[in-house]
């Protein structure tokens, strides 16, 4: 016999609803900032990984192996509890006056995800016919300019599906930021549960919000793909 009394009003109105909304706003901010930064850093690492200059290539390889092969949670703890210990006092004071939890979470999510994005973009680049590079170099573009104007734009276009996966992973992984006190959606759902014992409602609400966020990211990227990246692609 089920004795649990459902009370959805807890999560659809009032103080607890506002907590969830504010949690969602933080999750959204984490996701958007993280996705943009991870994409930029991922592009850079991908180019470095293919550099003809050995030290640069090795640095990128070390970066990839290091951040892909360690748990995200450990990385978050490292940036939050570890990194500031080696910084000067003045920097620490400044960090404490800002929203350091948020910054540490963004750094960890960005770096972790950029390693995966870099590998996806690199395999995209490798699938572009070598004649494209020849055509670009023949026109007088340097290696890096050829990458910038001719190779990477094509590589990113065919990398869209795996990129969407990485973006979704980042958005979902942002829930780990609660462990260092970032008041994002999961943190707030947990709070609501603690105050009301309505765990089913609180986490159902959080689940639905994550679902909506993820499907929105997918839809947005696909829209951008269709309108801007691949207007010529026959659908």
């Amino acid at each position, binding site marked *: 016999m089920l004795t649990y009394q459902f009370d959805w009003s807890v999560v659809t109105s009032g103080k607890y609803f506002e907590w969830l909304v504010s949690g969602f706003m933080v999750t959204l901010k984490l996701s958007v900032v993280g996705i943009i930064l991870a994409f930029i850093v991922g592009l850079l690492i991908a180019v470095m990984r293919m550099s003809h200059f050995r030290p640069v290539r090795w640095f990128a390889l070390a970066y990839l192996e290091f951040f892909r092969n360690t748990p995200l949670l450990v990385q978050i703890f490292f940036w939050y509890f570890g990194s500031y210990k080696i910084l000067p006092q003045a920097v620490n004071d400044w960090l404490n006056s800002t929203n350091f939890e948020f910054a540490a979470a963004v750094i960890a999510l960005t770096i972790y995800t950029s390693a995966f994005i870099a590998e996806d973009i690199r395999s995209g680049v490798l699938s572009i016919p070598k*004649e494209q590079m*020849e*055509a670009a170099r023949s026109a*007088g573009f340097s290696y890096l300019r050829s990458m910038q104007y001719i190779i990477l734009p094509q590589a990113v276009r065919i990398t869209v599906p795996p990129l969407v996966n990485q973006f979704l992973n980042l958005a979902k992984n942002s829930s780990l930021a609660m462990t260092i006190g970032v008041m994002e959606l999961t943190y707030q759902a947990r709070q609501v549960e603690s105050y009301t014992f309505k765990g089913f409602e609180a986490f159902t609400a959080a689940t639905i919000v994550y679902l909506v966020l993820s499907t929105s990211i997918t839809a947005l990227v696909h829209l951008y793909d269709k309108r801007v990246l691949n207007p010529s692609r026959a659908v």
Partner: protein
Amino acid sequence: MIQFAGVHKWFNQLHVLNDINLRITPGEVLVVCGPSGSGKSTLIRTINQLEPIDKGKLVVDGMDLLDKKTDINKLRAEIGFVFQQFNLYPHLSVLGNITLAPLKIRKMPKKEAEEQAMTLLARVGLAEKRDAYPSQLSGGQQQRVAIARALAMKPKIMLFDEPTSALDPEMIGEVLAVMQGLAGTGITMVVVTHEMGFAREVAHRVAFMDHGVVLEEAKPEEFFRNPQHERAQQFLKQLLSPMH
């Protein structure tokens, strides 16, 4: 304009260019022909250093290609290259393909680059295709856009590497016509091709290659009427009646 002196190149054990000595004067149209594997594509690709040479001296537009101080990107901007497979940029429209290098390398204002592109498109007969993407064009149209793209940099030299070999027969004529229109305008042209009709009518000189060696160099009328080398005779016979 282009001078080969004792140029050699190896692909591992394979001696693809064997003591090449060639002098191409400004405004000249040189057709390079020969059986497949003769090294003619490699030869044309050394001129803009898509293939670096191993030995000898190669001077293009006054710049020594083996000199470390030579800015190869700068030299390449003066040399148009047309590929067998066109190699248009598939993510850009026709207009985007033609204006990219003038905008980014020559720093040409956008309006000027687009006007120039339209002039060139009109010249190759494709003005109405400015907003199309390469995948929407036929092979012949793509190759004409590729020629317009190369011309947009106002090159002193145009290199054509088997520009019609990947085309359906009915499209070869439209590309050759554009190339014929270029010859005699003062631009130096080196054309690797099997189109002997083009060589006969347009070339100032024909070079015949086999096994990495230039066996014969002659004016087209001499080359076609009276080829000196036995392998050149064989090659021409094969082209004229491929069944035998």
